[in-house]
């Protein structure tokens, strides 16, 4: 199974633990959002806390996506903790 490195941007408080970016390898067929989060929690124990608070949304190629969306190698990926403007 071919793999490729994908950079995930960690927004807001998620960047506190290990900076604003982490790299990981995704299978070519991609992964749904909850699996991506599970993998990040395993590989980066410092992210455990931030990612377990829930209400994390994924953004793929500048579009916020539902949990069923598939993240593929080469996508521009970010994880959003709860947002708050104003």
């Amino acid at each position: 199974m071919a793999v490729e490195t994908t950079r995930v941007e960690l927004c807001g408080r998620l960047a506190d633990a290990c900076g604003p970016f982490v790299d990981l390898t995704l299978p070519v067929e991609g992964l749904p959002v909850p699996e991506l989060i599970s993998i990040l929690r395993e590989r980066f124990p410092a992210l455990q806390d931030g990612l377990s608070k829930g209400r994390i949304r994924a953004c793929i190629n500048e579009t916020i996506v539902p949990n069923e969306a598939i993240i593929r190698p080469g996508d521009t990926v970010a994880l959003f903790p709860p947002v708050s403007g104003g």
Partner: protein
Amino acid sequence: MSCQVELTEAGFDPAARLATFSASLGDEGAVVSFTGRARGKAKDGNAVGALVLETYRGVTLASMQAIAGDAHERFAITHSHVVHRAGRILPGEAIVFVATASPHRRAAFEAADYLMDRLKTEAVFWKREEHGDGASWIEPTAQDQKDTVRWLQSEGEENARN
């Protein structure tokens, strides 16, 4: 009709924005503005040195534009202006400015109220308060969530009536 949305790193003057907005109007009878200002005290009463707002690429501006578009669809407003700052904001400085205009006051009030509720809970910003010994992330409060849900409920009621 005009719907102007702006994201800026620079400080801005809400009164000057209101002046420009008002000068752009036609025969509208009602203008409402809201200004949100950075506070020098956190909820726990401790001093805040600055508020820092982070954004994400084009998604932040797009989220503001979507919210403003919804306000025009939902309320009988003819003009709106939304300005939101990003970056480091000092106490007393404006974080956000919203202005709405309509022939009648109810639509102008409701649209401004709606814009602020949705900006608070759905605009793509992450906020932290810097204080003496670090920084604290600020997420929408239970009240903010309740304020936004008001509009979902009344949307449901409107639909039920139709």
